[in-house]
């Protein structure tokens, strides 16, 4: 493995974390091990259990609530190293942080402790915003939450929910004022064992098949009023603030891991694969492909860690966060397409892990806000400076 230029001035603790997760991946997340889970579309539960015991699923949960209390740079290191081996597994692990972040950012201490326990104890959490008619357009959501005495009654159906089928607790966005659109949106903690919560259809996906994506249905689900996160009507702001935090590490860094894996694989393969009596790596056509993969990956990586560092310094810059997500995911799709080209027929075969990453890569351009939405967010944020 190419271990050079991976150090962004990381602290000794951060380097240790990097090595820890790398060793975990080398043992638990190889293609030989992941292939059957990818075939069946299943979370590798044994590996997840080990990751949870290591504290990887609770990395950003503050220490006082049982987590590792780490920041976005560490979260990015985790995401990159898991993404190196398996994008679906990285998605499964990082989805816990995405679900917890609204509570971390806007919840009270009691809610944080309550929610964190599910994750710290090895369970799953899920962020439930998307609906059939409302993805990136969060203003068009239909799920409602009606206050009745000390309770809210939630009705609606969420779709494409990562960890939806396995979650012990959900972070649900529902309208408390349906006439107000996005301004009428609120955020709630809903436990899986509440009456009326059920899991619908599981998605049979193109990629990240080692993650679980399900419909989640809320049918007259009664939750106590104390499960409201922040205030009524703040849901849209909570969701957008969460995305500012999660785009660089959860999405951006995962793509860097995948791209690094492909570069490592391509260099090794091109050194041993011979045509016309010499390794294909001696062809400039192959050299340029790999050099371009490296350029794109280094550039995206610099942006991802810059964005993560800024977040840890308390600087929320939507442009940088969204750019990191776009740069990483666009790069990975290019790199994975070229990697298949270098591997030729072997790249197209499921005997090699290359095709899997090509399938996995596409999701990063879609989830947590499509790259088109990211570009809209970027220009909107940019233009503020010109007004």
């Amino acid at each position: 493995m190419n271990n050079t230029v991976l150090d962004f001035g990381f602290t000794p603790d951060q380097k240790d974390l990097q090595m820890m997760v790398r060793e975990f991946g080398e043992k638990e997340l190889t293609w030989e091990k992941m292939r059957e889970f990818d075939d069946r579309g299943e979370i590798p539960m044994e590996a997840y259990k080990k990751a949870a015991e290591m504290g990887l699923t609770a990395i950003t949960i503050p220490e006082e609530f049982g987590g590792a209390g780490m920041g976005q740079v560490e979260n990015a290191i985790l995401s990159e190293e898991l993404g190196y081996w398996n994008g679906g597994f990285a998605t499964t692990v990082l989805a816990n942080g995405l679900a917890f972040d609204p509570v971390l950012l806007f919840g009270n201490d009691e809610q944080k402790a309550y929610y964190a326990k599910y994750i710290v104890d090895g369970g799953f959490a899920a962020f439930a915003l998307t609906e059939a008619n409302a993805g990136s357009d969060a203003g068009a959501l239909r799920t409602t939450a009606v206050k009745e005495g000390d309770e809210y009654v939630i009705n609606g159906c969420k779709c494409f929910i990562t960890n939806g089928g396995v979650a012990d607790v959900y972070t649900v966005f529902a309208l408390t004022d349906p006439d107000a659109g996005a301004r009428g949106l609120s955020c709630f903690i809903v436990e899986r064992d509440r009456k009326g919560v059920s899991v619908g259809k599981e998605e049979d996906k193109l990629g990240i098949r080692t993650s679980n994506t399900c419909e989640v249905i809320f049918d007259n689900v009664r939750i106590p009023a104390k499960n409201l996160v922040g205030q009524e009507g703040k849901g849209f702001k909570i969701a957008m603030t969460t995305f500012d935090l999660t785009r660089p590490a959860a999405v951006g860094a995962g793509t860097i891991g995948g791209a690094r894996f492909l570069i490592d694989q391509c260099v090794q393969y091109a050194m041993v694969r011979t045509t016309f009596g010499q390794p294909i790596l001696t062809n400039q056509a192959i050299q340029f492909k790999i050099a371009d993969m490296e350029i794109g990956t280094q550039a995206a990586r610099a942006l991802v860690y810059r964005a993560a560092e800024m977040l840890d310094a308390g600087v929320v810059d939507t442009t940088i966060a969204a750019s990191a997500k776009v740069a990483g995911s666009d790069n990975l799709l290019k790199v994975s397409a070229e990697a298949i080209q270098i591997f030729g027929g072997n790249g197209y075969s499921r005997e090699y892990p290359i095709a899997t990453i090509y399938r996995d890569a596409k999701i990063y351009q879609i989830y947590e806000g499509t790259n088109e939405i990211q570009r809209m967010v970027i220009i909107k944020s940019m233009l503020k400076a010109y007004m």
Partner: protein
Amino acid sequence: MNMLVCIKQVPDTTEIRIDPVKHTLIRDGVPSIVNPFDAYALECAARIKDKNPDAKITLVCMGPPQAMDALKTCLAVGGDKAYLVSGREFGGSDTLATSYILATAIKKIEETEGKFDIIFCGKQAIDGDTAQVGPEIAEHLDYPQVTYAHEAFAEGDLVKVKKEVDEGFEMIGVKTPCVITVTKPNFEPRYPSIKSKMAANRKEIPTIAFADLESIIDSGRIGLKGSPTKVKKTFTPEVKTGGIIIKEDTNEASAKVLFERLVADKVM
């Protein structure tokens, strides 16, 4: 249960290069790891600790200052305290001298940590492959020893050890204090958690130097001069290939062909 685990830091590769002149290992540029058998030994101790929360695991390692890294790695996966035995005077020690130094250091550590009930070692280190230091520590301390252990179970002052033998396994009961050397079991050592890893990085690891042992150690039995082993030559044995397989219809016929061949080659 008060346990000690002996740790050695070794080069992380099977492709170890050997200095053609000095016949010693070239360690430059080779990353170091905890000797895998020592990691299994630590896991055995950690499993005892899982069942007996009062149990304590102390680690000891003899080596240069950078061996501190190996001890930190082990502190993250079960070790409570760690000591590094390090000093120029100890350099050049063979297995006899090393085990004597370690046995002496163990007595010194016991002054602080109390008497150890079980001393775990890996069955051998992957660099030297001698499998001598563990058993020699037992002899220096005059303790009973069980070698090639897969797992150990503590029951009062008796330790039950699942030991590998040619035919399978033996369960052996051994009274504490004792030395147990561990081979590759059918489980993997645990992973560190983020918290245990960070805590390990912040732990102080005291160094035991020659001066700390001076009053209780015989300086003639350590280092190069205390080492009867002299490496005369290190070489890679020639790989022999091209054997023939004789497989006739019956064993008798095979024996006959073999006999004729041996006679023809004037071996018989």
